């Protein structure tokens, strides 16, 4: 082992990217995506949706203390959390579908990490100037200019972070009320804690970690290649057309050389700091800024646009072998993703349309299983729960069927009549129920409970049991 041998590097020091400002089709798309996604995030909690006097009027609300989730016309109870699972499955498969068609468009345009990083870079550029100025400022010594510019940048980042955390808590509380409380600094610790945590994480992730989140933290960016096929759109440099690259002076011939003038603008605008000309890379979030940059240059040097562009491997192979370039939307991969989307969406829709307005649950006593009364009849005890998911009080009539001459009695304050059990709007009523009957001939009989609303439009049944000595 000689001293001159380079030690193996296990850690690559990060080169911070200073993306240069660019304008073009994809940059415009990114601005629109940012305005739309951030607009939804910040404003959605303030949307109102009238649900009557017994429920909150916030369109999107997760009410932890009351254990209810609201999304416009949908209201779910904790036991219906599978709707949330359904939404997550739908979101995941939709992401797979879009990725197999158009590559990492989620990463490039709508991922919160990308959107907030983009916003932070914009703030950075407004205060500190474009790429070269920022690099000079960062490398230079601490001067008065550097101090106030850095301080202002970081302050603005923290303000954006606070707004992010502030908007988050609105989804869990009545937004206008909470806004007033926040303005007066009268927030509970839970709310304050979330604001601080999200302020900090936004500041950290969008201000400092940036593309490292995509490279080292995000699992999705790593397994996306599993969703790619030959007809998936990816951003690529057309090396068949671009190579051999080299500087080009106006008036020089384009014969015998590639279209790439090696201006490195595509590298300068890249928010993750890679050279797209090296081919498809794990770090690439497919934001399209290099496409904008290259097209600008191609226009200047009067060559056709699209040296860097969205294209598919299939198209390149077709071009090289002289076949027509066709991209199929319907392929085995996209077909399966679409099928899963349709099936899961259908199940969700069916569930939502057939969501019951109430539920009846009957729990048989475990101890004692049955009681013999002095006249020889058998009595069973039950705990029943009637859920009223509507926003109106409902009177239920409880009846049993399946055991001859069964008598129903409610054991509760005021000895309520089984034919008039009040269940308040949006709540669960619990009653103790005793069912007595002359001793049946079998040890175990099926006893069907029915709770019907007075109007008769809600009928819930529960198949329970009636136990006895059986002798």
């Amino acid at each position, binding site marked *: 082992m000689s001293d001159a041998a380079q030690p193996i590097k296990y850690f690559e020091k990060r080169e911070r990217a200073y993306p240069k400002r660019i304008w073009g089709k994809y940059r415009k798309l990114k601005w629109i995506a940012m305005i739309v996604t951030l607009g939804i995030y910040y404003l959605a909690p303030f949307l109102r949706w009238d649900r009557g006097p017994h429920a909150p009027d916030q369109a999107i609300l997760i009410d932890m203390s009351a254990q209810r989730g609201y999304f416009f016309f949908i209201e779910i109870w904790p036991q219906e959390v599978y709707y949330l699972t359904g939404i997550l499955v739908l979101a995941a498969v939709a992401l797979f579908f879009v990725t197999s068609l158009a590559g990492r468009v989620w990463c490039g345009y709508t991922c919160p990490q990308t959107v907030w990083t983009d916003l932070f870079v914009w703030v950075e550029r407004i205060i500190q100037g474009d790429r070269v100025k920022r690099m000079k400022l960062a490398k230079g010594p601490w001067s008065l200019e550097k101090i106030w510019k850095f301080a202002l940048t970081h302050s603005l980042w923290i303000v954006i972070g606070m707004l992010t955390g502030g908007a988050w808590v609105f989804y869990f509380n009545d937004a206008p009320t909470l806004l007033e409380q926040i303005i007066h600094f009268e927030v509970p610790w839970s709310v304050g804690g979330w604001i601080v945590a999200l302020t900090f994480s936004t500041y950290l992730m969008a201000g400092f970690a940036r593309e490292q989140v995509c490279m080292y933290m995000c699992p999705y960016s790593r397994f996306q290649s599993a969703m790619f096929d030959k007809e998936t759109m990816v951003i690529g440099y057309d090396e068949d057309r671009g190579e051999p690259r080299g500087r080009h002076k106006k008036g020089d011939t384009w014969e015998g050389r590639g279209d790439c003038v090696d201006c490195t603008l595509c590298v300068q605008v890249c928010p993750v700091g890679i050279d797209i000309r090296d081919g498809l890379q794990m770090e690439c979030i497919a934001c399209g800024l290099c496409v904008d940059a290259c097209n600008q240059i191609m226009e200047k040097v009067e060559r056709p646009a699209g040296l860097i562009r969205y294209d598919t491997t299939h198209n390149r192979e077709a071009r090289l072998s002289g076949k027509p370039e066709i991209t199929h939307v319907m392929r085995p991969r996209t077909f399966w993703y679409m099928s899963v989307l349709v099936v899961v969406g259908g199940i969700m829709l069916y569930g939502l349309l057939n969501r019951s307005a109430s539920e009846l649950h009957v729990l048989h006593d475990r*101890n*004692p299983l049955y009681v*013999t*009364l002095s*006249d020889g009849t058998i*009595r069973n*005890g039950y705990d029943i729960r009637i859920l009223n998911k509507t926003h109106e009080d409902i009177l239920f009539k409880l009846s049993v069927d399946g055991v001859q001459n069964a008598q129903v009695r409610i054991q*509760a*304050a005021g000895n309520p009549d089984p034919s008039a059990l009040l269940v308040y709007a949006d709540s669960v009523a619990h009653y103790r129920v005793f069912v007595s009957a002359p001793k049946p001939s079998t040890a175990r009989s099926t006893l069907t409970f029915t709770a019907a609303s007075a109007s008769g439009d809600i009928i819930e049944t529960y198949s329970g049991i009636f136990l006895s000595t059986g002798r």
Partner: protein
Amino acid sequence: MSKIDKDEHSGVETTGHEWDGIKELNNPAPRWWLGVFVITVIWSIGYWVVYPAWPTLSGDGERGGTTGNTGWTQYSQLAESQAEIMARRAAYLDRFDAATFEAIQADNGLYAFALAGGASAFKDNCATCHGTGGAGASGYPNLNDDDWLWGGTVDAIEETIKFGIRANHDETRFSEMPAFADIFAEDEISDIADYVLSFSTNTIYPTRGKTLYDEQCSLCHAEDGTGDRFQGAPNLSDAIWFYGGKKGEIEAQIRRPKHGVMPNWNVRLSDSTIRQLAIYVHSLGGGETE
């Protein structure tokens, strides 16, 4: 002064201690570690001032220790949290103690309070004999049914819990059935058992059974076998048997009756708790109104 001895291999100074040719090197603890250690020592002095720390011989202060200038101790914290619970309960308890059973039964909140308190006290004190569901066992009455030896109203149940049965209290409920093994012959006992069974089963019985029953048993158990709650004489005409309803079991009870004992709970439970228990037992299904 000895000269400084350095270890040849590492160049570190030795402490001068040597055992069998092995020298101890002088590698002191790092400065930062020492610094932290000193800070913790200083910190502990502040801790002694603020919190209870040292045991004292005199037993002064809270539970024989220095109290610290804040006065905080684990005992005071416990007392505080207990007082908080009691204060929360008091809101109900004052109303509960003042209300009649009818008023409690009509009030959702009070009734739920009584049942919750009663259920918890039942599991702590009563479940040992009566079972967690109050279903009892042979010799321990089932509290779910509608057959009551001493009465099934809330007041009667409350009195039974308070003073017990055959317990060590002047007002305890007391009944005693004589042992008829010395009075009746075996075949006479068999006839009486047959007659007793006929109350609930309408079976044929020997006339001698009825004659002997009317003479010896009806005074307490009544001529029709319905018993007498005032004397604590069980109802023999229903479907519920305290010590078993087979003929042999009835005969055994005539020969040498068993007498159970229930303690008087007034020495152990508060009046409020006993009342909650009574309301809970009353709610198990067999409670009587008046």
